[in-house]
């Protein structure tokens, strides 16, 4: 059977050459994303700004949005949105936070329920009061920062500090671009989005770590190879894995996107962007070349380009390497 090869063996792309393009592009995109965040803002869901979200389904035929809009509007509940959601008889009603604390939110829901009456099924009702929403936003932000710091510390222990810093810059870059994407597409930014951001962080670190692992291995083996060459070899060696993994992750996400329903739609869309699109780009074009700027390998001196005689397995590999490894360096 002929097996599928997405990436041919022994690719020798000069990825590092692109750093003069990729860094300015990434810097520009990051600035654009930050600008979007500040000037365009995020479409904060009720989790973070409080308010009411109701998903209703009309019992008889498609929903008459205009009529419902006027019914809800007559209650004078301030800002509200009504939109079709999936099927023609599904309607999403969003009511902004009512002045007057937690109790006022509850009264607003009751009034909407009374006004719409029995003509609709209430598929989902979410009411978040001001005290909870403030906390959720704070916890979400703390969580993201905490995760980044925890991962940074772990990487610092496992690698050198430059790797930890490089990984952090790369992954913050991922998060910033994703937030920009969420601002641009007006995707609801709620608790699930924080979960999405953390997963993106986890995945893209996963990727970065795989390449860094290889770079570290190469650094130990080739003492004299120039940094750009060494990084190129490392990225090329892991390229096939990167692509195949991202294809499978993309497949899983695609399935979630197509069949997973509305409830996790924004979650998967964000992940698709953050993991598949940005994550792949970052680990190749940002995470690896940034090591050059952070001075990895600049302190290497002497030695030969021959593999060393002692077993040069990475510290974490317990098994002794077979002697045949020595042939390997020249290819």
């Amino acid at each position: 059977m002929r097996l599928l090869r997405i990436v041919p063996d022994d690719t020798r792309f000069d990825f590092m050459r692109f750093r003069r393009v990729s860094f300015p592009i990434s810097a520009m995109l990051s600035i654009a994303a930050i600008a979007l965040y500040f000037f365009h803002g995020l479409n904060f869901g009720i989790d973070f700004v409080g308010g009411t979200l109701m998903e209703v389904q009309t019992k008889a035929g498609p929903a008459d949005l205009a009529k419902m809009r006027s019914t809800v509007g007559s209650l004078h509940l301030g800002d509200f949105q009504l939109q079709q959601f999936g099927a023609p008889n599904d309607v999403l009603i969003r009511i902004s936070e009512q002045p007057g604390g937690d109790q006022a939110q509850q009264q607003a829901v009751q009034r909407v329920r009374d006004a719409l009456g029995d003509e609709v099924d209430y598929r989902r009702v979410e009411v978040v009061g001001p005290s909870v929403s403030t906390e959720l936003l704070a916890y979400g932000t703390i969580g993201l920062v905490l995760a980044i710091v925890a991962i940074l510390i772990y990487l610092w222990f496992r690698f050198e500090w430059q790797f930890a810093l490089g990984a952090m810059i790369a992954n913050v870059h991922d998060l910033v671009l994703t937030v920009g994407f969420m601002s641009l597409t007006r995707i609801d930014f709620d608790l699930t989005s924080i979960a999405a951001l953390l997963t993106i962080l986890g995945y893209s670190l996963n990727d970065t770590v795989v390449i860094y692992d290889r770079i570290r291995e190469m650094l130990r083996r080739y003492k004299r190879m120039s940094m750009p060459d060494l990084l190129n070899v490392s990225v090329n060696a892991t390229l096939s894995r990167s692509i195949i993994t991202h294809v499978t992750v993309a497949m899983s996400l695609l399935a979630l996107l197509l069949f997973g329903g509305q409830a996790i739609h924004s979650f998967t869309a964000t992940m698709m962007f953050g993991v598949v699109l940005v994550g792949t780009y970052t680990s190749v074009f940002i995470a690896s070349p940034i090591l050059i700027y952070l001075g990895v390998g600049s302190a290497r001196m002497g030695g030969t380009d021959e593999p060393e005689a002692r077993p040069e397995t990475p510290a974490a590999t317990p098994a002794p390497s077979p002697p045949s490894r020595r042939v390997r360096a020249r290819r």
Partner: protein
Amino acid sequence: MLFFTRWKAAAILITALAVCLCAVPNFFAESTVRNWPAWAQRHIVLGLDLQGGSHLLLEVDSGAVRKEQLQSVADDVLRVLRQARIPFTGRAIRGNNVDVHITRDTDVDTALSKLRELSQPMAGILGTTGQRNIDVNENGGLITLAPTEPAITERVRQAVDQSIQIIERRVNELGLVEPTIQREGADRILVQVPGLQDPSRLKEILGKTAKLDFRMVDQAMTVEQAQQSHPSDSEILEGEHGEQYLIEKRVLVSGADLTDAQPGFDQNGSQPIVSFRFNSTGARKFAEATQANVGKPFAIVLDNKVISAPVIREPILGGSGQISGSFTVQQANDLAILLRAGALPAPLTIIEERTVGPGLGQDSINAGEHAAYAGAALVIVFMFATYGLFGLFANIAVAINVAMIFGVLSLLSATLTLPGIAGIVLTVGIAVDSNVLIYERIREEVRTGRTAINAIDAGFSRALATILDSNITTFIAAAVLFYIGTGPVRGFAVTLGIGIITTLFTAFTLTRLIVAYWVRMWRPRMVPI
């Protein structure tokens, strides 16, 4: 890397099988599982977003608890100083203190020592904690009493505990199935009721403090006069329709003395009422009060609202009576429930509500299942196309991996939410990645001219280090998510975290075992990837 002793291989297989078997109870109806031994009954609980139901987060009004605490300190001050016959002025609650000014300088020391007796040492788990519940200070005849922070915290904690008990009684009285009621943080209570579609009535019932008092109507002056003169021992309260009454502050009998309350109808059989019965102390107090006040009106006050103010026609000695307001049947029912369950120590506010109807829940389960099947199908075909026989091995490992996730979830009786399903689907991605890492490494090793067995061995040993590193970073993200997340997000973190652990297990043992077995059986010259 490819050598397994017999007992090690057996241990790996038994572990995998045992964990997978834990998932079995999920495939049987609950009624069947109930007859199984207790250890075999553990199964996955569907989250409210999947089975439908109501989630209410309530906050105990700690401000009210604090105020009540200050009021009781102020009452104590009054009692102590009166008993000691020490003249004082300006007893008042200011901020978080109770202030009192001792009139004669000579009395200050006596007053101080008497008031210091109010301050009790706080009891901890291991005897006294060395802290007291009230700080007493004196400055030029002005004595200040302030409840200490630990005392306030303790009082709030007690209020939350009491509230939980009362909520439990109220929810059970409503006949709701399998409610979960638990403390959240310092002053919050989470109430989850599966299957409840319209929580309006539940919210109504939980939102009432249900503090019931029987008090006399103050006939010494009219409401208008009281509005001018502000009498110290009476207050103006409103009735159901906004009418005003002047009611004495002194409580004849309180709702705490009720033993039972039932909804019913009056003699004509038309007007819904609530009939109640007092316990013996309540009955005695009520009998004495009614004997002394025949012909005068008294008031039934619920949550500072006058429900009715009937005139006492004759002494009520039997210890039972009835409340007739202008109730609907439902209101009479609810009031009876509230009276039976008792009053909350402090008002509760609903600060978060999430309700999912059963239709949406079922849709979500279906969507999750479809997505899982579609994702699995795509990945299985892709892996087989890419790695052939080894792809098949990977698929077997991933399938066992997913079965193990369900096993662990069952073992923990974890809650499965829709984001949780997403977490499982993503784990499939991670699990596949571990296989990809191994196989790609083997391909590389083959290219360097190694023999098949050598290449496989080196591929495993080098890839596993990478797998460990990359999974630990993802696991850290999942752990943080679990720690800070609530509800659905936590569900996602749980499945992702468990998925990473099972992925590490399968990558380090099962996949290796399968390949090792294959190598032993076929002694391959070439690696078929």
